[in-house]
């Protein structure tokens, strides 16, 4: 009875029965890796300042998480790379020449208030890095909008300041923007390569797309949010962005400038703060794109990606509830 019964014994357990290789840590570190090309391009254009700002962000984010968790006698979760990622994203979202205390304040707000006070990774309502940046932008409006000109020389102490392409577009119009960059093709090339003023990691579209391709290939993000986000921005820029009436705008400038690519592929797709149903993700992306373009064209700020994503973060649970698929075989309740 004994040995024979053992062989046929069934193991009864609750699902899931087959586990994949993926862990939170593995996904987070891969996302970090995919941001590396953008970081390298920012080093190329903005020099050691880029490394200083980003490094400080990462360091203070990781330290903030570690200190908070150890002082509350909880298990420190810095190993899973999420604090590292928050710091990294925040760093790539800052202008190159901020004073040293800005990255520190931003990281602490992002980690402690936005993430840990809400219960840690998986419970935060908003994207931590973006809340950190929103807090900084509102608190230090002057310091956060000093953009240095990219130099492509590793040591450039006397970096000139200038406006971002979107800022020029808003203040002085398209013709001025083309005049600064030469002609239209030059403008597109500089925007694509990242040779323009802006936040550290948002400038080089091509580097960001390389990273995003890695994430898409590994299946860590799906096309739904980024594609609907970018497409909405393009359509709205084409429809409403022109001076000569409807459908005369130049969508490419709006697609290539600002933090759109960084936001659409790396921030809006944050698992915790976006809807988890595919249909809902498309609604989420369209909402992000629409709010972005409303702010860019009509609002007070030249760039609206950050506020758009944060606003849509609020709606993520609502969207999820709205697009819930019908239960199989369920009959609609009849009205009496």
């Amino acid at each position, binding site marked *: 009875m004994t040995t024979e019964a053992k062989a046929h014994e069934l193991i009864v357990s609750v699902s899931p029965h087959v586990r994949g290789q993926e862990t939170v840590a593995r996904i987070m570190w891969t996302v970090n890796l995919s941001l590396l090309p953008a970081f390298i391009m920012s080093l190329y254009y903005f020099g050691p300042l880029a490394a200083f700002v980003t490094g400080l962000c990462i360091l203070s984010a990781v330290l903030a998480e570690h200190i908070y968790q150890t002082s509350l006698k909880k298990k420190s979760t810095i190993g899973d790379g999420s604090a590292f990622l928050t710091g990294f994203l925040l760093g790539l979202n800052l202008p190159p020449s901020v004073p040293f205390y800005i990255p520190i*304040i931003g990281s602490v707000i992002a980690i402690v*208030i936005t993430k840990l006070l809400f219960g840690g990774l998986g419970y935060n309502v908003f994207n931590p890095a973006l809340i950190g940046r929103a*807090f900084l932008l*509102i608190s*230090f409006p*002057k310091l956060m909008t000093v953009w240095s000109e990219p130099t492509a020389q590793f040591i450039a102490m006397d970096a000139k300041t200038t406006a971002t392409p979107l800022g020029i577009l808003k203040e002085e119009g398209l013709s001025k923007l083309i005049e600064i960059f030469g002609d239209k093709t030059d403008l597109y090339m500089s925007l694509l390569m990242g040779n323009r003023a802006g936040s550290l990691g948002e400038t080089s579209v091509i580097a960001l797309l390389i990273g995003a391709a890695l994430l898409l290939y590994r299946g860590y993000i799906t096309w739904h949010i980024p594609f609907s986000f970018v497409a909405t921005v393009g359509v709205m820029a084409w429809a409403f962005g022109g001076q000569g009436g409807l459908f005369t705008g130049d969508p490419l400038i709006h697609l290539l400038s600002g933090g759109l690519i960084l936001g659409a592929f790396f921030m809006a797709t944050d698992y915790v703060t976006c809807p988890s149903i595919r249909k809902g993700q498309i609604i989420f992306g369209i909402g992000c794109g629409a709010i972005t373009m409303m702010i860019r064209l009509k609002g007070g700020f030249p760039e609206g990606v950050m506020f758009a994503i944060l606003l849509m973060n609020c709606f993520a649970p609502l969207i999820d509830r709205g697009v819930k698929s019908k239960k199989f075989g369920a009959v609609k309740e009849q009205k009496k």
Partner: protein
Amino acid sequence: MSLKPKTNIELIKNGMFGENTIFRMAISLCPSIAVTNGMKNGVALGISVVFVQTMVNVTISAMRKFINPKIRIPIFMLVIAGYVTIIDLLMATYARPIYKEIGLYIQIIVAFASIFARAEVFASKNKVFSSMCDGLGMGIGFLLAMVVISFFRELLGKGALFGYPIVSGSPLLIMILPAGGFLAVGLLMGFFNWIDMRFFGGKGASGV
């Protein structure tokens, strides 16, 4: 609220700490965010509330035998509005600069949940002197909360206290904007709940 009648000192203490309007009961939160961007405004509104709360409690308590329960709400309203008008006109006359900034919120004291709640819950059932103590405690509790919130908001947001600059350097502008008000109230509420749970064995506020 315990059923045992409290002594007058206990009533005052209860209003200040145990049932603090803002941090424990989480009512009257609107002024705590709207006028706490500077200590001057916060203290002015706090003192007005102390006055109105105390006088309303005394008046309601003195009239409690004559008030017909069926029409008590309009009567409470009238009494509160009367005292608010007094403080409104007084401030308009003698404290013109502050009145220009927070005048609207002085008038809005009429609709404060905390004042109405104490009139209904306490003053209409208790003797005049203990009602006065209760009103005083509640008012001072509100004043204390306003002082604490506006202290942090003005210090962080402007680097100043009562309008006098104290710290130089670029302040956190967000703290004097409405968003900073929510942050400050939320964090302070959490902090006081933590103190209560850690040192006094309480269960923390649950928005009673």
